[in-house]
């Protein structure tokens, strides 16, 4: 059992870490690699802190960290409008991650299906993509394959389930964000044009952050299957 002081220190540390990773997310121009920025696309390294909380702490702590991260980074770096976007993404993502943390293989499977759907939609909208769209189509294709591979690997017990949860969380985050944006911006066309892009990107970056989180857990000798916040 931890003392209250330890708990406060831990929350402070995790919040600070989330903020710093959020700053790093902003600094990495992910979409510049695709030839131009697109709003809402980030690597999502800050999500590893939430993954940590989801697996190694209780749900209240995860909710607290998510709110602290969204609100503080919104106030420090952004505006109230920005808070609105990331809050709806954050809530949806955390909800999904908490729900499937014990069944990560289904997360990977759903993510794979969603990514495949997004890919199909993109190709229907523009069967001969060029420029940014071409890169995105390739990226989502790869992400889709990785999701299915992760699903099989988790089922067979080859890897732990953290990436599965992370992918599902990232996709949910992006869906929440686009939903909020399409309402705030009064542009429902975002749902048909931009949502597939963000779903695909979510699958890709979710895999990355999931692997990072998995490595971190391993390096810290923590077992995500035996959270300390819960009694046996």
């Amino acid at each position, binding site marked *: 059992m931890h003392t209250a002081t330890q708990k406060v220190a831990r929350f402070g540390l995790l919040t600070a870490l989330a903020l710093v990773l959020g700053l790093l997310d902003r600094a990495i121009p992910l979409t510049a690699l695709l030839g131009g920025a697109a*709003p809402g696309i980030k690597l999502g390294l800050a999500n590893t802190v939430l993954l940590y909380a989801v697996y190694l702490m209780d749900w209240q702590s995860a909710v607290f960290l998510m709110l602290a991260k969204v*609100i503080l980074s919104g106030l420090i770096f952004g505006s109230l409008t920005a808070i609105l976007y990331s809050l709806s993404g954050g809530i949806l993502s955390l909800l999904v991650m908490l729900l499937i943390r014990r069944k990560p293989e289904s997360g990977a499977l759903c993510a794979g299906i969603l990514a495949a759907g997004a890919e199909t939609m993109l190709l229907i909208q523009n069967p001969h*993509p060029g420029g940014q769209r071409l890169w995105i189509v390739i990226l989502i294709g790869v992400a889709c394959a990785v999701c299915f591979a992760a699903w099989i690997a988790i089922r067979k017990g080859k890897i732990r389930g953290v990436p599965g949860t992370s992918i599902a969380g990232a996709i949910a985050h992006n869906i929440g964000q686009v939903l909020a944006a399409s309402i705030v911006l009064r542009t429902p*066309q975002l749902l048909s044009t931009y949502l597939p892009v963000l779903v695909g990107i979510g699958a890709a970056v979710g895999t990355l952050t999931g692997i990072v989180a998995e490595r971190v857990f391993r390096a810290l000798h923590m077992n995500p299957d035996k959270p300390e916040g819960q009694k046996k």
Partner: protein
Amino acid sequence: MNKRNSFLRTMAALIVMTLVMGGCGYRHAKASDLPKQTRVGYYLDTVITLTAYTDQPELLDKGLEYCGEYEKMLSRTVEGSDVWNINHAEGNTVTVSEETAEILRTAVKISEVSDGAFDITIAPVSVLWDFTSGSQIIPESATIEQAARLVDFRQIQIEGNNVTLPAGMMIDLGGIAKGYIADAVKAKLEAAGITSAILSFGGNIVAIGLKPDGSPWKVGIQDIDEPTGKTMMVSLNYGGSTVTSGIYERGFTVDGVTYHHILSSETGWPVQNELASVTIFSDSSLMGDALSTAVFALGTEKGSRLIESMDGVEALFINRDRSAAGTSGLGKYMEEGENWITLEQPDSAEKTEEPLTLLIQVRESDPAPGYILLQSANEQGFLALPIEGEVTRTIRQKLDDGSEWLNVIRMTPEGFCMIEADCEGHDCIAEGEVTLENMKDRLLWNMVICAPHRLTLSLYTKEEAIQISRQWLGY
């Protein structure tokens, strides 16, 4: 300490902190808490836009219905209308409605003071001209000369509600009916309790009271060289009427001569003088409508003398060389204009095709190859791409606390990009250029989004833009 308790307490503290900090710089509630309502209709060959702060939007629907009723009464082409009856009476006396009689009396009064420069018996001439279909046909000068002989307001006899017009002559209330209807709709809305509204009827803008924050309404005066919606100046409306007549509204150009819809009652030809447009500021839109035509026909010198002789009326003259002049009391009605596209204001542009200086009706005949659909928290509308060269536009969103959000776009004949913005992150600038060529290959398709400013700009081809504008207007 109880774990759950401390958790809840921390959460509560965090939320309170957010609300307090969020309160600074965020949008406050309107001075008047009533929501802004807008209704758009198409009557009298014009897009009519009624905007009011009210919780009874059905009043605005009623207002549009009135427009339809008056159109039936005052149209020259609707069979059985008062005007149709007068024109087809073959010299016999016709009994008309109270309203028609009042309009005719005002028309004759303005004709008298303007020495016939404004004349509703212009119809035999105006039917010869076709300024709307784009046919660009100049009538035979002999035909015009013959028709011009039939123009003489002194022949109209009005006794009570009985009107007599000599056979062969015709009247057309096109230069005055919109003014009357504007006044009438305003009166009805006022009687229904609306205290803050701006109503746009083609070149006629009338306002009820001031804006909810107590400032005057702003009415954009369109740039004479840019028929697709740039504002040249901004005028102020304190709950009265602002009417503009200009050569760019309806007309065509052949061999360098602009043939426009303001016809000389003497010769039957379009009035050719130094003027490009005249704007009349008055209480009555009926008066303003007739005066704008009369003053345009009279020219700056005689026109301003006429206006100076009247109480409570001012005029703004814009010349074809883009210089401007005004009558002595004009200052009150003018604001320094800049190359802004303002979303909250102007509340209405003087041309109805683009209220708020944004196009809502895209036509086949418009020359631009593409359009930018602009959607903000408050407004939406089209900006036409320039025909050639580069144009820079500043989009300013005024917030209720007096602060502003700025975005600057650069437009080319092929597309546009964001070049400046005072948002954080500047994502909208990094999103790069959208062109008619590349829009299907971009991550954001045809869009540039400034998420913090709640602004979406999307590029559409002319065909798509016409489709969208039809959906809005429902025709």
